[in-house]
């Protein structure tokens, strides 16, 4: 299953809740959630822990827009909008954590 998150983990618990509930699958960080994919923020350890059981992706255009195109955590995979589309087709279902 694909889980889509769009909030910064520093202001909203969506990503935290997703990581609490989800045991496996793909996680895509878009919009303000891309800050979670940047190295050096306090959430980095949680992302690294999640990568042990889920594959974590980040929407590169959203990272670039926020000035973090070069600060991505090792192991997090960048995708463009086409890659976003592919993730929704390779997974049999998806959930937006709004």
């Amino acid at each position: 299953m694909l889980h889509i998150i769009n909030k910064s983990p520093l202001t909203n618990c969506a990503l935290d809740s997703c990581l609490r509930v989800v045991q496996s699958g793909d996680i895509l960080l878009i919009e303000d959630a891309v800050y979670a994919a940047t190295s050096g923020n306090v959430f980095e350890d949680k992302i690294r822990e999640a990568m042990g059981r889920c594959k974590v992706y980040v929407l590169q255009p959203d990272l670039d827009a926020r000035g973090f195109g070069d600060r991505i955590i090792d192991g997090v995979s960048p995708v463009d909008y086409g890659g976003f589309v592919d993730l929704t087709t390779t997974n049999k279902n998806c959930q937006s954590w709004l």
Partner: protein
Amino acid sequence: MSEIKKFMFVNRKAPHGTIYALESLEVVLITAAFDQDVSLVFLDDGVYQLKKGQQTKGIATKNFSPAYRALEGYDIEKLYVEKESMQARGLSEEDLLVDVTVLGRAEMGELMNQQDVVLSF
């Protein structure tokens, strides 16, 4: 529309502060009319939607909380609450308006995996 899919509505927002909970409920009722397999999930602040004793007279808005009790009449009987979300808010099943199934976080994750369409507002 003879095809039956598993629809899950994930409610993660508190009522009253925004309109999401009310408009989500409106979709749920319509979905039931389409004879789909409907589940409702209450996670995080969404659990507050089910709190007993909501009185909205003082804020001059519509109190839609009694509508959760009417869901049964629409054959919507699969209501799930995540245990961790409920406990984090100091709530127990007795605080809730309706009968629910309480699931642990991993069981909740598994239930999500089994769905065809997951809607969240």
